[in-house]
């Protein structure tokens, strides 16, 4: 993150209104304008300092009828870890049976975020 003064434009996604935000990072301070409500400010702050995303993907299942298992992170994962998580997901090869919610990768890179199964397969 560039610690100097730096204005970024973004659209708030917390509610469907989609306020256009201007976000400036000045040393440690984050200034947000354009938001109609405080949730927008919170969103902008997180988005600019530590963006996170819920990741959904599929991994290999050792099952003839269902070769792929849908999986997801059980919480938003910091942006910078996403590609590495995906690499790990595509290396997985799991036997059945599996239940929705089964933890497949625990506490990825110490973030506290788990990868869980998103479907039950017999």
């Amino acid at each position, binding site marked *: 993150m560039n610690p100097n003064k730096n204005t970024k434009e*973004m*659209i708030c*996604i917390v*509610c*469907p*209104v*989609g306020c256009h935000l201007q976000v400036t990072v000045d040393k440690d301070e984050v200034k947000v304008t354009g938001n109609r409500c405080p949730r927008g400010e919170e969103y902008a702050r997180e988005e600019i300092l530590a963006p996170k*995303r*819920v*990741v*959904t*993907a*599929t991994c*290999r299942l050792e099952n003839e*009828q269902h*070769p*792929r298992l*849908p999986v*997801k992170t059980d919480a938003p994962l910091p*942006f910078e870890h996403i590609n590495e998580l*995906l690499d790990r997901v595509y290396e997985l090869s799991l036997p059945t049976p599996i239940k*929705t919610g089964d933890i497949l990768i625990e506490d990825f890179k110490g973030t506290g975020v788990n990868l869980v199964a*998103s*479907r*039950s397969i017999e």
Partner: protein
Amino acid sequence: MRTEQIDTLVIGGGAAGMSAAATVSAAGFTTALVEREDELGGVLLQCIHNGFGLHEFKEELTGPEYAERWVRNIESSEVKVFCGTTIMEMSLLEDGRKECFGYSPEYGVLKFVTKTVVLAMGCRERNRGNVMIPGTRPAGVYTAGLAQRLVNMNGYIPGKDVVIVGSGDIGLIMARRMQWVGSTVHAVVEIQPYPSGLTRNISQCLNDFKIPLYLSHVVSKIYGKERVEAVDITPLENGVPNHDKTFQITCDTLLLSVGLIPENELSKQVGIELNSLTNGPTVDSMLMTSIEGVFSAGNVLHVHDLVDFVSAEARLAGENVIEYLKGKRPERELSIKPGANIRYVNPTRINPDAESDIYMRPLVVSNNARIQLQVNGEVVKRQKKPHVQPSEMIKLKITPKIFQDIEITPDSKVEVTLQDEP
């Protein structure tokens, strides 16, 4: 030939079908649920992303998780499920019942003789032929839904360098998905001057990956002898393509997300009247079609955006099937029409003596909207909406209380309108 005599046949085991079947069966009526795939769930099974269930379950679920909740409901119900079975024919018997033939590898041809039918067949995707993109016909052109199925259910990645036509949610979700499986999406091309999908998806599916979005542009030609090699992209100026400004993108895959069409071939076959505004059956306040005892809900009735609304609408249809089977009909119905800034309303008739939901789509985008229900020009209900756009369906509750203080006759003019809040 095996015959099933039942009270209700639900055609389609996706979100709508499962909700309708569970509802009717819970009231004690014999219900069969027929699904052509080998498992229940419909298109939800391939929608591995999240964002489902916020209304229905107060949780954010993925498509498969949402489907699983409903499958559990069905499994613990008395619904007779027939998977791998495709209804091919429907006809009306003299006694008012319907006769439907389903083909199944397991059972052969199954004859269903039923008092009521719920049509829940969902929709299909508009394809290249419908939008008539000129050029060659190489391999590498897919609808976004087909690509989604191949990637998420089979693990097959259709191509490496992708251009997506259409900025609706399906196209946007697939943009992200293709990037996450190692392909590169070079552009999303949108004919309208504004994106069709949710802002959240523009942000998380395009901006996150720096995928350019070309608004007011069209793919004007496809190149490639055996496999796609490139596409021409042309800007629209005042709605007209300006070919002087056409540019080319090298790619091997074109994904089309250009609209959904309710799958009403079975409905047409049996002569059900369709509403040209929705491409689905015209339905009354009971969500009943022009054929007695045949109901409809979900994407086959009109294309939805939120699966939660599908489940709610199908539940409503189920409740109406129960009323119908008990011999109850609305005492009176009023015709309801789309008014200012509303594209369509479903159903097109309402029962002023019962509580119900109506669904509609606006024609415009507004961040400060007011929806009004008017009877003969008098406003009987208003609802504020902080944000509306054509690609987001609106649900409005109708209660008998609304009509209490006014005079209604069968000719009363009922309209839904939308305008900016003053």
